[in-house]
């Protein structure tokens, strides 16, 4: 793995790797896992949703289900609701990556990058709040 080879390279150079570099490595692993889990979760909803849509002969031109109606329609196995949930799972995947970055930088007391990650998260939440209002 390239990240590992980078740190091995450092070791061969005789410099001791600080514990912070291992946190950085954990961040990369954590973000990658978050992306994989998020995309697989989305796929797990989109695939059955598409099958149900094809079987139910649903029209393509239907908007996504609003949040307030999502759960009731999912319990009725409405294809549009299942697909909407899958899309929302996908949209939150990068957000989780940003949260992981913020937490990791806070743990190693890298205030600069934790502040940057926090600011990015704030902007995204602002966009979400503006959409809701």
């Amino acid at each position, binding site marked *: 793995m390239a990240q590992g080879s980078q740190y091995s390279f450092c070791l061969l150079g005789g410099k001791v790797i600080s514990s912070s570099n291992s946190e950085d490595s954990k961040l990369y692993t954590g973000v990658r896992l978050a992306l994989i889990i*998020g995309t697989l979760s989305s796929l797990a909803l989109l695939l059955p949703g598409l099958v149900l849509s094809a079987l139910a002969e649903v029209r393509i031109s239907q908007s996504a289900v609003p949040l307030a109606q999502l759960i009731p329609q999912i319990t009725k196995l409405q294809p*549009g609701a299942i697909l909407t949930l899958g899309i929302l799972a996908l949209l939150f995947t990068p957000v989780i990556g940003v949260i992981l970055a913020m937490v990791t930088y806070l743990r190693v007391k890298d205030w600069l990058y934790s502040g940057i990650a926090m600011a990015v998260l704030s902007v995204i939440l602002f966009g979400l709040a503006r959409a809701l209002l």
Partner: protein
Amino acid sequence: MEWSSLLLLGGIGFAAGTLGAMLGVGGGIFIVPLLTLLLQLPLHIAIGTSIVAIVATSSAAASSYIKSGMTHIRLGMLLELPTTIGAICGAIVATSLNPQPLSALFGLLLTYTACSMLRQRRIGDELTSNATLPQTRGHYDNPGTLSLSTSYYDQNLGQTIPYQVTHIPHGLGASFFAGNIAGLLGVGGGMIKVPAMNLIMGVPIKAAMATSNFMIGITAVAGAFIYYYRGFVYPHLAAPIILGAFLGAQLGSRIAQRISGRRLNLVFAIALLITSVLMWLKAANIAFAY
């Protein structure tokens, strides 16, 4: 919903995901014209669909690039701040701005960038001035500073490529502009971010594309929720495109890791030129694109 429609939409997603992952863009620049031209979809619906597909391409490709060590998460996070701010600004003004002059400006920029990338003399020569960097480095060499020097392993060259990120203020400015374009046109902004990182900030082309792939998903999310709540995301339309994009992004990211930086640079420059033509057509109101 017919299976033929599903296959067509999936094919669009696959093509966009493959190219998008290879080039560090989200694929929206390909998806929106295809949806408006082939399916005669209204522009806002095409953009809403495109934005969601961009997140899919980004997430799928980024996980592969992070595993290979090509993604610079710190740089991506730093540049993402002005990008997301720009994306929000772009989305807010999108409805009141005349798109034609903007399209002309965008087309001019893309044409200039494509020519610059084609003229770049050290295309693919990754072992250049950065070879004098210290042998040991890491993101935490200087805690509290930007700490952006790093390296990645190039599978094509079979060696570790060190590099140092420079001209950060210029990169921040370019990212803000990329964010505005993303918010206005429903793309990820990679067409600006990749050249900015490569030509201005000294990031090797492969690392620039990998980092851009990580960033564009975050950028797209900033605007995606707005499109979702305004009812411009059609899940039955988006879902097959997303599935196709997932598969295409997996393929595209693997291809990009194996071919030379020179070839990637050439492919990217050609994609920029094609996109600039689409922008010029839109500016001249001959558009099927946007």
